[in-house]
């Protein structure tokens, strides 16, 4: 859990946006797809419905036309019966009608009791047994009803079993002297073959059903009677006219106006709708995927060309912030903007570093100047006291000592000035220290002893001038004052592997650790610090942090001050001088 939270926190804003946008776009594509498919599906269903409805309407119309013709024919026949005077006339008229109308199979006249009174047909022999005629429907023959029977087999004649539809009417005929039924059997094949040939979509078809749910005609009726195919006839015949969309099938139902029949169109959604939708879905999904992957590809390229260099630039800038002085930057190549940015940054880095360098140099120069100014201020008390001592010696006519003093003072000053150069040889520096000690020894009337321990090899190296004198001054002032026994100052110079050490050691009061710590870091350390700090600063300005003044001290034991210097040869010194 914790880890997860951590990771969440780590997710950058850009990643979050990326995710959000891609999720949104996927959602959008999804919604669009669903909407489109929905609309497409609806329109397909609508088209399929209309298609099916039209086919069914056509069948209904055709049946209607066919029925109308039959009605016209039977009305004509009725009229003939009324018009004709003899049965022979009727026979002639009916036979010519039969010859003209190919579809007409036979015309019969039945008595009210179902007895066949007359029949008219071409070249057919009547069967002997007429008890079970299939063309006799008294309930359908009521006057003016003109109902057409379902197609059936005609079994009037020997060896002749045509499929017919029957239409009949009752009429009063003076010729027969009673009410008779005029019945007409009409071949039904053409209308059926029309129904057969109706197709809706690839596999759709039409069939005709009556109001009781019995099939009137079905293109595959043999399959249905053999139980190899099923239609939900009872359900379908109860439906009102209209289109019914089921899961797999679209039913279109329309009633015939002339007959108690319904025409049902069956079409399969699978081929009309679902296959098309599936194909559309596939196409859309593939193109969406394509688009997304192309977009992804472009984003990748974009991020490679732009985002990544920019991110790298940001990292570089941070790095530069951390380490401005020594940072090195090389501009990267990429698209124009990024390259320009990078080049500008490189340029800026260069300029900033130059500026920094300049500022630093100026600062150093300033500081050098400042330190020089400080260092050249020779304590006036020292000069006054020394001159006072010389005067006092002259008054006592201690001529030799006065000469020695004056000579020491003169050397002291000559080295102090040393043509304004900062670096002098260690030999000179030690000479300078010796002269100072000579003068001070007179002043303090031999209250301390000093001696030098100098390695010959170091003398020719260079060092900053007046670095021993301040330390010796400190040693005299602070080392001597409170000591009861005689003070002793040792000045040593030695060469180590990579440096030169000048050491000033006394056996005075020493310092506490706190004092030690403060001395080099605080400027405002009364009298002890200033000289020491000045020396330290000067050395470090010239030679860096690893050189300078190092203090060791123990209370009541004494203080040891070490000056670490690099080995500066005459050549080095000359270069430094030229640089300034």
């Amino acid at each position, binding site marked *: 859990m914790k880890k997860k939270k951590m990771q969440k926190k780590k997710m950058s804003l850009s990643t979050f946006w990326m995710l959000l946008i891609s999720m949104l776009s996927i959602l959008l594509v999804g919604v669009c797809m669903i909407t489109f498919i929905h609309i497409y599906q609806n329109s397909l269903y609508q088209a399929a419905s209309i298609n099916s409805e039209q086919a069914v309407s056509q069948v209904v119309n055709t049946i209607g036309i066919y029925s109308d013709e039959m009605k016209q024919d039977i009305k004509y026949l009725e009229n003939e019966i009324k018009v004709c005077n003899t049965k022979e006339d009727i026979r002639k008229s009916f036979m010519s009608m039969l010859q003209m109308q190919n579809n007409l199979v036979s015309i019969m006249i039945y008595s009210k009791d179902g007895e066949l009174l007359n029949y008219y047909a071409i070249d057919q022999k009547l069967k002997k047994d007429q008890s079970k005629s299939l063309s006799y429907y008294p309930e359908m023959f009521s006057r003016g009803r003109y109902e057409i029977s379902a197609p059936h087999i005609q079994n009037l004649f020997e060896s002749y079993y045509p499929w017919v539809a029957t239409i009949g009417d009752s009429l009063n005929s003076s010729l027969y002297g009673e009410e008779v039924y005029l019945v007409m059997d009409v071949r039904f094949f053409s209308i059926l073959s029309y129904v057969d040939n109706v197709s809706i979509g690839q596999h759709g078809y039409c069939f005709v059903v009556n109001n009781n749910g019995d099939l009137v005609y079905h293109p595959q009726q*043999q399959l249905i009677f053999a139980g*190899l195919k099923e239609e939900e006839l009872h359900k379908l015949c109860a439906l009102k006219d209209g289109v019914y969309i089921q899961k797999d099938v679209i039913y279109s139902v329309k009633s015939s106006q002339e007959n108690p029949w319904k025409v049902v169109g069956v079409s399969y959604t699978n081929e009309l709708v679902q296959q098309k939708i599936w194909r559309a879905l596939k196409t859309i999904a593939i193109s969406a995927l394509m688009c997304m992957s192309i977009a992804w590809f472009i984003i990748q390229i974009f991020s490679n060309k732009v985002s990544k260099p920019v991110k790298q630039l940001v990292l570089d800038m941070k790095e530069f912030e951390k380490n401005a002085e020594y940072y090195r930057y090389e501009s990267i190549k990429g698209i124009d903007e990024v390259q320009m940015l990078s080049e500008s940054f490189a340029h800026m880095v260069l300029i900033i570093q130059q500026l920094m360098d300049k500022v630093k140099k100026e600062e150093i120069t300033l500081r050098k100047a400042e330190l020089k100014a400080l260092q050249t201020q020779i304590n006036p008390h020292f000069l006054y006291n020394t001159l006072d001592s010389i005067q006092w010696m002259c008054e006592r006519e201690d001529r030799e000592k006065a000469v020695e003093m004056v000579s020491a003072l003169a050397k002291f000053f000559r080295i102090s000035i040393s043509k304004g150069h900062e670096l002098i040889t260690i030999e000179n520096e030690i000479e300078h220290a010796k002269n100072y000690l000579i003068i001070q020894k007179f002043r303090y009337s031999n209250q301390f002893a000093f001696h030098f321990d100098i390695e010959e090899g170091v003398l020719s190296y260079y060092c900053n001038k007046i670095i021993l004198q301040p330390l010796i001054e400190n040693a005299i002032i602070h080392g001597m004052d409170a000591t009861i026994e005689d003070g002793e100052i040792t000045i040593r110079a030695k060469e180590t592997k990579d440096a030169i050490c000048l050491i000033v050691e006394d056996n005075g009061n020493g310092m506490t650790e706190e004092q030690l710590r403060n001395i080099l870091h605080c400027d405002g350390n009364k009298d002890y610090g200033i000289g020491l700090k000045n020396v330290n600063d000067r050395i470090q300005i010239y030679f860096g942090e690893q050189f300078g003044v190092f203090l060791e001290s123990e209370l009541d034991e004494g203080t040891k001050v070490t000056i670490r210097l690099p080995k500066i040869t005459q050549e080095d010194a000359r270069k430094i001088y030229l640089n300034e």
Partner: protein
Amino acid sequence: MNRNRTKGMLFLILVGLTCLCTSCGEKEEAWSSQIKDKPDIAVITKSTDSNFWKAVQRGVNTAASEYNLNVTFEGPTNEEDYQTQNKMIQEAVKDGIKAIVVSIIDTNASVEVIKEAKAAGVYVVIIDSGINMKNIDAEISTNNYDAGSKVAKAILKNREEKISVGIVNFDKNTTNGQEREKGFRDWMKKEKRAHILESINVESNIESAKQGTKELIKAHPEMNAIATFNEWTTLGVGSAIQELNLSDQIQVVAFDNNVISVAMLESGEIDGLIVQNPFAMGYLGIENAYHLIKKQQKTGNVVYTDAILVNKQNMFDPSVQKILFPLDNEEN
């Protein structure tokens, strides 16, 4: 390194997608081209002029228009002519049809031809009469054994004490006739009062059957029932009975419907007809072939269509009408 890897992945994904798309496109094209050049199915029957085969043709045509297929329909003129039939099968295979729907005349003589057709990748759907080999893709027929036993059941309805039966069958090499006879014999064995006098095999035409029947009746004057198993023998037996005027003495249960045999049924020469469903055979033959071509159906499918017994009493029932009287008697 990482960047390179993602680039590689991307490239792969893109290539994959393109392949997918193009393959989809190809598939769709193939699909549409299949609609253009409809899969050709050849229907090869035993003959084409009997009512039975006309009804088969009707079923074939209905299915063909329903499934939008190009179908040829042909058969030899003579129902014994297996050589012509074999030639027709070979021709059809040569023409590059995708499936044949065939009713085999000679159960043994056509094995090689059918094997060749199958080797050429043609689906073989057998209707009506089978072949003596395995691996047929689909078979649609009347349950011939069961139809034979239906003939027996109809004859056994006769209340007479002793039933002496003569059998008039057709070509011995035709599977369905033999199966029908077997079903008939097996059922007859169940009743002791019935026994089979003689079984003759005649050519599958009216004249041969008529002569055979007359001789059979002459040889066995005690005969009071005849069973026969196809359209032509039925007509032959019927007309023999008619000519000898024995319709009241001899009970005839026969096979298949045409106008003449139905008239005989009505007038009493024939007492029962086993009516098959040739329309369904034709229809289902094409339907099965279609599904095989579309690979929507596994091979080895067997469908039995029903055969019903029609007699004088039920022949004009509305549902029987639709099976007994094929619509195309009308067509002229």
